[in-house]
């Protein structure tokens, strides 16, 4: 059974320790429009290089444009898609009236109201990953979009089910939430449903609110380079 993953992003070793335990969901609180999607792509690509499967659940962008974004940083994802290691759950495109269909690597879901379809898609992806590896990475971007369309209690129930499934299936990754977009009660309840939380401000300064492991560093500044993010 998988015990932990190594996060190979530059500078992250001291924050996440050498081996980060699987089965944990972390909340990434960040200002809207900050490039958290790049962080998500880099986090998944880092795993793919080690043969760890990854799933990106996107509510704010299409997988096609995210793939293009990744390619600009030198992170080709097509090979991993062909090997079944990289999967997408696209909750954006159909809702944005794009004329698209599901593919081998992309499961399209009708929109942010279709929570059952999102959970079924996650379950299908997890079952596929289970045949390939003991653990997998995920990036869910973002909970804020879900909260725009659903009432908070509905999302809490959804998260209770999803995080427990991610835990049982050895998933590890992030749920993003827009900073300043929701009231404090919503933020705190969602934090309560997670295993840890990290916050990012407008200057890309990162601080650990809580983590399921002891971290040497609790603060840092992210810099976006041509090769991706570096934490200093």
């Amino acid at each position, binding site marked *: 059974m998988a015990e932990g993953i190594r996060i190979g992003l530059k500078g992250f070793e001291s924050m996440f320790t050498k081996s980060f335990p699987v089965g944990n969901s972390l909340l990434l609180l960040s200002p809207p429009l900050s490039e958290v999607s790049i962080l998500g792509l880099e986090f998944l690509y880092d795993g793919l290089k080690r043969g760890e499967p990854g799933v990106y659940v996107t509510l704010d962008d299409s997988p096609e444009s995210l793939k293009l974004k990744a390619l600009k940083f030198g992170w080709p994802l097509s090979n991993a898609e062909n090997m079944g290691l990289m999967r997408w759950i696209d909750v954006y495109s159909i809702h944005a009236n794009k004329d698209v269909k599901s593919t081998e690597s992309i499961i399209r879901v*009708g*929109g942010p*109201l279709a*929570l059952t*379809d999102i959970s079924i898609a996650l379950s299908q992806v997890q079952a596929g990953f289970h045949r390939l590896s003991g653990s997998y990475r995920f990036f869910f971007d973002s909970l804020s979009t879900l909260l725009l369309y659903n009432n908070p209690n509905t999302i809490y129930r959804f998260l209770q089910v999803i995080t427990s499934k991610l835990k049982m299936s050895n998933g590890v990754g992030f749920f993003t939430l827009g900073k300043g977009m929701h009231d404090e009660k919503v933020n705190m309840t969602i934090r309560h449903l997670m295993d840890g939380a990290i916050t990012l401000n407008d200057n890309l300064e990162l601080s650990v609110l809580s983590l399921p492991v002891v971290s040497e560093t609790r603060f840092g500044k992210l810099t976006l380079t041509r090769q991706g993010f570096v934490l200093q």
Partner: protein
Amino acid sequence: MELKESLLLWSSPFAESEAFMLDMIKSSGSKTFICLTDKDSKTFLAESEIKGYKINRATKFLNYDGDLKKLFSKIKKSVAKGSLLCVDNISRIIDDHGISAISGLKNLNDELTVIGAKALFLFTEWPYEDDVFSGLRSSFKEVATINEFNGINYFSLDGTTTPYSVTSGGLKVSNKIIVIGPEKSGKTSFIKSVSNNKSVFDNFSNDLTIDYADCDEFQFIGASGSNYSPLLSLFSDASSVLIMVDPSKHESIMDAKSMISSSVSNGFRVIIGNNDFRGTGLKASDLRQLLGVSDDIKVIDLFSEPGVLKRLLNY
């Protein structure tokens, strides 16, 4: 799968219940009304095609915009005797209106029953308060559940579980049939006789040998001797258990009784095969009496009836 009366389809958040609804719509042949609460009809139609179902043009979609009174009024105006109403999914309605929505849904269901229409309500079991679950259970006469485990969906109704998967060709019920029975009841001979190809066996362990045989699109799986328990857990995704009984042996009847009860308690659909290869003249109806099984368990004559296999598979 045909809908006999109004049904609440209660599914786990990871189980594919929409395919089940589509299959029921296909089998019903009735004028259908679909109320979608979390997606639009265009998306639903596209997803239905991916799941292997083409929705009839006569099907009408009823919009839900959060106004429950308006929705109920639209339903009552549209749905007539003999029609089928599908609500996908009532969890959204409960999210929006709380527990009060349940009594509204119950009243709607009662009114539909009075006018002679059937309804299928899909419900996703998110972690609601207990009163939502108990309210739903007490409001609907027929409740079927759908659970998911390792990519296989399990549909349960009236204590019988049917495993199925969703493919691009529609809903596929598991093609596996477990063959068990007391010693020397003719299991291996039966498996060999129905096989399209040469049947194979697998020495699974020192005390368990498993026989496999393909017959058309079905797969029969049997174990030698009377060691049947491991099969029930190893092949929990099987659709049915065929229990072979040699009616000439008294002890065979006793053993079969415990096999029936064990298979039923494991949620399997049970078929009893009267394998009168010794020619006692005992018929399926006699064997039913000897075993004391209820009418919902099928007992068939395996040896004497022509086309028995077809009957078995169509059951």
